[in-house]
């Protein structure tokens, strides 16, 4: 039954861009907004994999998302080529008017799509590995880890805001032209990105489910509930935590990479701790520990936000805040818990 519903919803989603392309009543706005939610859903999924299963609550997952986004952004900037306002063959506009003479070394290679995609995976993964290794080795868990990751994304935000970083400072990257030879402002590009996001979400969901159902999933639950016991059973839990944390960071990186061409901008505010916190709220809202719950949470909260910011621009923060409060107090298992109880 459940499978059927999921399949139906997926098909329905996959149909949206086709209807849009055919001009059958689905507006561009719907495509971009739902496409964005799909990326958010991947982010929520990645948080849930680490938090819901292994109990690693990262309040800095937005950082991995943003890093993936920056990798994609750098690629898109390189693709602009001489079409920038200043017509410089290599340098992006912001470098030209800030007086850069040549491309900084860390921009090399980003003109290649495979390289950029690799970086969108590897950079978040490497950062997660570094942070995770240091933290897990020192047995930093629970709340401490959360605060630490929050500080991480905050530090990254401050650093990326600096124009001296050579990554566009506050303005970040905008005004992208094309990806893989397709102009980004066309319905086709939007449809392809939408489908890619849907496929990525499906892939991540499949990956997550496969982990959750395997012995690894049970080990992760063990890490969450009684890590010491697992260690005395001979599990080097550092490895398992690192594995899931790095994997989760990479998923977030993919989400970010797909997000950027759809919203058309990446800037350091994606690193802001509030964004990461909000993503955690999606998961809590949908129901942590169930991958579908995370996806559901991301869709519901963002749907609510999109709707409320238009309907009640002055009051939406109240409503959203109240919803968070109500969910944590009344629905400890989230929306999924509510739905399952109904049945």
């Amino acid at each position, binding site marked *: 039954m459940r499978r059927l519903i999921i399949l139906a919803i997926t098909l329905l989603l996959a149909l949206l861009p086709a209807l849009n392309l055919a001009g059958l009543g689905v*507006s*561009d*706005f719907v495509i*971009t*907004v739902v496409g*964005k939610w799909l990326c958010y859903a991947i982010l929520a999924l990645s948080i849930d994999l680490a938090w819901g299963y292994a109990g690693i609550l990262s309040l800095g997952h937005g950082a991995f998302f943003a890093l993936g986004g920056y990798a994609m952004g750098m690629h898109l900037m390189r693709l602009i080529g001489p*079409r*920038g*306002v*200043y*017509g*410089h063959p290599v340098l992006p*506009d*912001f470098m*030209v*008017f*800030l*007086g850069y003479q040549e491309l900084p070394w860390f921009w090399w290679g980003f003109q290649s799509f495979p390289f950029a995609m690799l970086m969108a995976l590897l950079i978040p993964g490497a950062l997660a590995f570094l942070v995770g290794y240091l933290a897990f080795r020192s047995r930093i868990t629970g709340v401490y880890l959360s605060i630490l990751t929050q500080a991480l994304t905050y530090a990254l935000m*401050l650093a990326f*805001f*600096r*124009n001296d970083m050579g990554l566009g*400072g*506050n*303005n*970040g990257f*905008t*005004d*992208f032209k094309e990806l893989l030879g397709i102009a*980004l*402002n066309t319905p086709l590009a939007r449809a392809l990105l939408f489908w890619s996001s849907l496929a990525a979400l499906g892939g991540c969901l499949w990956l997550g489910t496969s982990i959750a159902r395997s012995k690894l999933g049970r080990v992760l639950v063990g890490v969450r509930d009684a890590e010491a016991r697992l260690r005395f059973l001979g599990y080097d839990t550092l490895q398992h935590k690192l594995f899931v944390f790095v994997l989760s960071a990479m998923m977030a990186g993919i989400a970010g990479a797909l*997000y950027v061409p759809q*919203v*058309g*901008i990446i*800037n350091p*505010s*994606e690193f802001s701790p509030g964004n990461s916190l909000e993503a955690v709220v999606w998961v809590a809202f949908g129901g942590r520990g169930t991958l579908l719950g995370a996806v559901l949470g991301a869709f519901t909260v963002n749907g609510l936000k*999109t709707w409320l*910011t*238009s309907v009640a*621009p*002055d009051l*939406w*923060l109240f409503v959203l805040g109240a919803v968070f409060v109500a969910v944590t107090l009344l629905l400890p298992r989230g929306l999924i818990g509510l739905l399952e109880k109904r049945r």
Partner: protein
Amino acid sequence: MTLPTITRRAALAGMAGSMALPAIHSASAQGAPIKVGVLHSLTGTMAISETALRDTVLMMVEKQNAAGGIMGRRLEAVVVDPASNWPLFAEKARELLAVHKVDVTFGCWTSVSRKSVLPVFEELNGLLFYPVQYEGEEESRNIFYTGAAPNQQAIPAVEYLMGADGGEAKRIVLLGTDYVYPRTTNRILRGFLNSKGITDADIMEEYTPFGHSDWQGIVTRVKAFAAQGKKTAIVSTINGDANVPFYRELGNQGIKAEDIPCVAFSVGEEELAGIDTKPLVGHLAAWNYFMSVDAPANREFISDWHTFIRNPRRVTNDPMEATLVGFKMWAQAVAQARSTGVDAVRTAMIGQKVAAPCGFTLEMLPNHHLTKPVMIGEIQENGQFNIVWRTPAPVPAENWSRYIPENANRRR
């Protein structure tokens, strides 16, 4: 535009249609209001600045409706909240254009928000009025920039500081928040200063993050920089929130305007409303409008504002005036084009003139920027500005600065 394939009958039908247009408009006076999108953050960090602009647009809409709307059609404001979140700006812009089908949008404050919505407006051929002074280096056919370009604010202010009345500054401190407007403005200023014989050794440039609150160290360093035997002045491109602690520190460390004057490009009446201005008397700001301007249009603006907001203590400021000017020009252009169509309005916009509250008649130039007078005001104890200098006539905007050499290679 050529019409090679249009048949005679079609052309005739078109003519008939255009003749029937006025009738259609009057018929739609009750039915189809003109939609005015408002894209200003009402929550988050930018709400502090942008809510007043939302209110300004609402005030103008109300006023226009009281005067019978435009071409007999009522105006209807569509307010959304992009929540100081840049991707959300793009989403909301698309929503305004694609879902609400607004005819015009007034919105954005930060450059990054404008950069975020720009591709959306270009793709969907929308019309955005951007009311804040910015770094220039942009010219979109879908945006009208009603704030100042750098040559309408920064350069005259620095010239004033270097002149007799400003204290003949020989050393300049460029303080700014680390984002694109201060970076570009300071680059332009550096080029300008160098051209005036002030070398890099006499220029100190420092950037701080958004909302920076601990200015002790920087103000101390400014004092040390000033103690090198030459008259020193500060040029501040510090953004919004960080100004209050900055000015407090300036006052507390005893930096008086007589010794080291500070001219700011982002500090207006609204920002001063949150500060005790007594220690700041004599520090300067450069704008194209001050609330203290003595002109009939300004008196009307202020009284309208106080009536609308129901609070006689609320102030007006430069971006609010720029919003008003943009709105009036748009209304005139729509009336002149007899259409709200973007292409028609865009054409009609160029050359529109408005007697603005700043006391001058401003004109929309073909580069989508305005002519604006430059004024320098001194902070007074009551939080208002005393205008100590102004250009005799409005200055046309140079959105592509001559002090940025790369502009020579710009694609046109």
